[in-house]
């Protein structure tokens, strides 16, 4: 059974991850992100995933938020994730980039926590992110 990935969908229906993907990432970064998900969906233990970075320090850990990281466009990108309610399901909360200890946008962790709370309170939903197989 493969892992599945779902994007956080705000109450107003905005797919935050897809917006970040489309507006912030270069074409190469998009391809890289696609490939990371494609490769990782086949790896049983998420801790063995390429790009898996575990829990960031601070309050995010309390909410079981963890990170996938990759480098593209001379930036260290981070995608905040949590596990979904279904087996082998990951919810992608938002993407940002990271330098030193600074996330950009600066409130990225707070926003991710807010999204988790919204999901817990059923004020937001998710929708499955297709993993593209090129051929």
């Amino acid at each position, binding site marked *: 059974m493969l892992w599945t990935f779902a994007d956080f969908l705000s109450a107003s229906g905005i797919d935050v991850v897809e917006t970040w993907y489309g507006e912030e990432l270069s074409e190469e970064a*998009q*391809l890289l992100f696609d*490939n990371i998900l*494609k490769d990782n969906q*086949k*790896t049983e*233990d998420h801790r063995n995933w*390429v790009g898996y970075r575990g829990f960031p320090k601070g309050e995010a850990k309390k909410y079981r938020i963890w990170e996938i990281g*990759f480098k593209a466009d001379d930036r260290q990108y981070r995608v905040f994730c949590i596990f979904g309610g279904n087996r082998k399901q990951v919810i992608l909360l938002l993407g940002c980039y990271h330098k030193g200890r600074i996330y950009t946008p600066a409130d990225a962790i707070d926003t991710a926590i807010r999204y988790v709370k919204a999901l817990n309170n059923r004020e937001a939903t998710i929708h499955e992110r297709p993993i593209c197989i090129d051929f």
Partner: protein
Amino acid sequence: MKDRSALISKLISSRKFRESYIRAKLSVLIPSQIRALRLKWPMTQPELGHEAEMKQSRISAIERPGSANLNVDTLIRMAAALRVGLKVELVPFSEMLRWENNFSQDQFKLPKIEEDTAFISPDEPTADEDNVHSRQGAVVYAVVRAKQPQVDPKQFTFTQTPLWPAAGLAESEQGIEGLPRQQYR
């Protein structure tokens, strides 16, 4: 870029896009292979760094998608430290994609040089074909070799150790699942 025909058109028309496309594939597949073997052996990042005469931070970067600008020499050092060979080969796009689609970190299993009976004792009977085909990364190579026309070896003026079919692949191998993961992260 999720539409297949648009993807193909762009790949055909733009060299720069082909570069990005290939780089994005290898930026995941290479770290994934290195990480899989390191965890399987098992080795910590500092241990692999020690073997390869690199800092742990460099190993960490190599295992992170897109983080390390890997050149062939770095790959050679990685392969040598992991006790496996290295094949860098120009292939058709279709073959690269088949490799990617078939690759799975969990299924990626290679014998270390000292366990590689096809290399050490090429005259001994090899492992059965199912075992050969169970090895990710070898599948494509097996298919390609099988499709090549048979060539009379006398046509060659050099001799070559028969490295294929590979053997000794799966007898004592354990999956990554069996490892004490926390220790090797």
